[in-house]
């Protein structure tokens, strides 16, 4: 068992590093987000392989999403997703009212402009996890008041 503080500090260093290397190379914000997201993707792939070792095969897409909201979220962020909504046409909105990586940052509008940096990795995490369960998706995140945030998952039909 690793300690949570360790991961949070490492996650911060990840962000620091990506944005620092961007200063020299004139990389714009979008590229940094992509870089973080890609790292998350790889980690998500690995994690989901470990987590689903003993689970039964999922029935359908919704089943997969429920697993991500409950078990996956619990083992990574120590809590479940607070609210899952879907339009039944391949769009899911996962709402976390107290997102682990934002709780240390602020509880309000302060530092709002920095929030995307702290969500990019997790977007990748979800996308990578889903990818290895055979669900191709695009995951974006939005924050209006920290530490609550919404992850939107758009399923891409193969």
């Amino acid at each position, binding site marked *: *068992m*690793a*300690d*949570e*503080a*360790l*991961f949070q*500090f*490492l*996650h911060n*260093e*990840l962000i*620091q*590093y990506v944005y620092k*290397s961007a200063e020299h190379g004139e990389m714009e914000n979008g590229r940094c987000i992509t*870089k973080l997201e890609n*790292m*998350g993707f*790889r*980690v998500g792939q*690995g*994690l989901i392989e*470990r987590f689903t070792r003993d689970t039964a095969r999922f029935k359908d897409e919704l089943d997969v999403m429920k697993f991500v909201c409950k078990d996956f979220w619990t*083992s*990574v962020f*120590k809590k479940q997703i607070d609210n899952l909504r879907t339009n039944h046409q391949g769009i899911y909105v996962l709402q976390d009212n107290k997102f682990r990586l934002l709780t240390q940052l602020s509880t309000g509008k302060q530092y709002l402009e920095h929030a995307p940096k702290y969500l990019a*990795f997790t977007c990748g995490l979800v996308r990578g996890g889903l990818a290895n369960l055979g669900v191709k998706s695009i995951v974006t995140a939005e924050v209006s008041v920290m530490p609550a945030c919404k992850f939107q998952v758009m399923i891409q039909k193969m």
Partner: protein
Amino acid sequence: MSRQSNRTTESKKMLWYLPFISASASMHRMNSELFTLTYGALVTQLCKDYENDEEVNKQLDKMGYNIGVRLIEDFLARSSVGRCHDFRETADVIAKVAFKMYLGITPSVTNWSPAGDEFSLILESNPLVDFVELPDNHSTLVYSNLLCGVLRGALEMVQMAVDVRFAQDTLRGDNVTEIRMKFIKRIEENLPAGDE
């Protein structure tokens, strides 16, 4: 710190205990694979970004240092460990409390130099390398170099300048993973009166 006053020299024999698990402390436990995999993703990215392993080692050490500087606060707040009186005690705290708390392992402390300013931490298992194989073209990469930075940064914040490096690494075919720590000097600081 009032706690030191009732410490005697016998405290060297004292067994260190992990902090009492409070309701909130169990919340600190997280899936360790997340940390391991994230670290792996970071090293992979660094290897892409930099031409040679030396540069990657340097970056990992630098990041570790930044983490250590912050981690020490977390550690002191949660472990209720007071000031150490000598380097041996420091070694004990690092191995028995800090490593246990953050990585769930207890390295053994061995190979003391006669002067008592150098020792080795022997890691039976290294959680950072759980899913790792080093490719041949990265023979000089010190994969877990982040740990050196963490130790250096954390100790610097408690007025100790130390030199930390990997002497052996199972990833490179050694039997054990060995971190060698050398005490360089005490960092002097001007304490306000009555704060001793």
